[in-house]
């Protein structure tokens, strides 16, 4: 997880030289590129996850990403394929289990999730290669992201965003007001299945950066923060993307200049933003209440 062999790089307060320093390594360039793609994709999908209250589904899918990555490594292929295969498969299983109802919490989901997590640990134990243990899969790493992986992330991310652009408006309608939406001919059930598949793909992408345990750092926290700050859909969506992007790039920079894992930094930065937003809202509520009695006084003046 640390930069073995390169020595500890030193942070200067000159941002230009710092970025020149980081980007002199191709793997760091790849990490920043992958980070940008993942941040945008998981932020947009995560915005709908928060709005639709599907964080449990997102959690299940991300838990399944772990055995996916471990199994892929055991089979000798890149972890990214394992992420995509199992996340999308898990999303389809959840969609099938939910049936027509809106109850996503199922004992079966929990049971299968537990078994798959256990399998993941078995796979990492069986795999005696260059894996430091399950930590990199669970908590994320920026090392070893290849150009072809960046390409794969970009292609899948573009497809996810394109599909979301196509179904965005009906999906919002179906998320907020499913009864009236279906009355207006919106295919609520089909949209729900499509969205779960997009959720699977986005979770797989986020796992690449934050690790499977910390997927919420990019999927949920930026969207939750933005929705605290504004109730305007377009603005909060834009804010979500901005926050996820900032958390990822700041996290990558912090992880490069310190010996601690990437997932920790991304999560901490996103969480700090969430706390700031909460503080800002309570502050403006207090000020608004204090300002209310003041307003009528201005009228006669």
């Amino acid at each position, binding site marked *: 997880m640390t930069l073995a062999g390169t020595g500890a790089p030193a942070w200067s307060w000159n941002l230009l030289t710092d970025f020149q320093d980081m980007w002199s390594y191709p793997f760091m360039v790849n990490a920043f590129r992958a980070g940008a793609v993942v941040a945008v994709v998981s932020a947009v999908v995560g915005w709908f996850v928060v*709005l639709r209250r599907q964080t449990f589904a997102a959690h299940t899918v991300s838990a399944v990403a772990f055995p996916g990555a471990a199994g892929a490594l055991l089979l000798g292929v890149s972890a990214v394929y394992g992420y995509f295969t199992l996340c999308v498969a898990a999303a389809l299983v959840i969609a099938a289990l939910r049936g027509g109802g809106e109850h996503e919490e199922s004992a079966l989901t929990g049971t299968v999730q537990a078994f798959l997590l256990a399998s993941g640990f078995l796979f990492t134990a069986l795999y005696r290669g260059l894996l430091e243990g399950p930590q990199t899969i669970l908590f994320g790493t920026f090392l070893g992201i290849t150009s072809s992986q960046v390409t794969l992330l970009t292609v899948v991310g573009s497809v996810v965003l394109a599909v979301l*652009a*196509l*179904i*965005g*408006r*009906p999906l*919002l*309608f179906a998320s*907020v*007001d499913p*009864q*009236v*939406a279906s*009355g*207006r*001919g*919106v295919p609520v059930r089909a949209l729900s299945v499509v969205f779960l598949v997009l959720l699977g793909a986005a979770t797989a992408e986020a796992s690449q950066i934050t690790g499977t345990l910390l997927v919420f750092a990019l999927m949920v926290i930026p969207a939750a923060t933005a*929705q*605290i700050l*504004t*109730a*305007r*859909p*377009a603005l*909060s969506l834009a804010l979500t993307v901005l926050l996820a992007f900032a958390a990822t790039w700041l996290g990558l920079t912090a992880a490069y200049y310190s010996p601690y894992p990437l997932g920790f930094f991304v999560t901490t930065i996103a969480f700090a933003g969430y706390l700031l937003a909460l503080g800002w809202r309570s502050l403006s509520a207090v000020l608004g209440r204090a300002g209310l009695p003041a307003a009528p006084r201005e009228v006669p003046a």
Partner: protein
Amino acid sequence: MNPIAKAREAVTHSTHTLPSRRSGGHDTAPDSGSVPVVALCGAAVRVGGRTLWSGVDLRIGSGEFTAVLGPNGVGKSTMIKVLLGALPAAAGEVRVLGARPGQANDRIGYLPQRRSFDATLRIRGIDVVRMGLDGDRWGVPLPFPSARRRAAHARVDEVIELVGASAYAHRPIGQCSGGEQQRLLIAQALIRRPELLLLDEPLDSLDLPNQSAVAALIGRICHQEGVSVVMVAHDVNPILHHLDRVVYLAEGGAATGTPEEVITSGTLTRLYGTPVEVLRTSDSRLVVVGQPEAPAVHTDRHSGGPS
């Protein structure tokens, strides 16, 4: 108030045009020469092998306010589902806006049985209203100024003004009160200028002042904007002054006509086959006494009724 006077006028007018009560089982709307907005002829509906109601004859003209009344579980909401084409009629003929049910749904505004938005939902009321306009269109709205965008904004503002929700339309809808949410949802149902508005218990779980305010709003929309309204109601009293027509459902049968014709001791006694008394209080509210609840008959309940 003007709408109330208008409603009363409409009621007396239709009473005069009716030669006799439910002649030949047909309840004729004031004949304007046009196709009735809703026409049911001998309609029946069956859910799970049980016939909820049958033999319903109803003609609703444009701009009329109709209430669907009856005890719990008698299939009032099912009537709305039949009109939307979500459930087929087991017998008889049903025409909505001159077409088969479900064929003209784009000209119908529908307000389902009360949904309340979660207090933490961070979507503004104005956005929920806007979804009624183009929420079912594929794609995402582009952030560039265009004629369509301006027209959409103008229509949203207009309909919010119409229901009197301008003061809170920009607040997150979860933070609006029940009455405020209901007004915004009515605006959402109205935004495409429907010819028919189907409302499923819109006054349910509102407090009394809000019940009469929302009822007056619906009456005004109906009589001033010329939108026909079919409203499922548990209690006739808040809407009584605005009503043109009543469908009273009972287990098996139904009675249709003006409120004066239908909500009487005679009609309801005939409909239920058991003595039912309709009393009028000093403030002209109606109390139905001795009406059996469907499906079970509670003989111990005397003053339950549709209140």
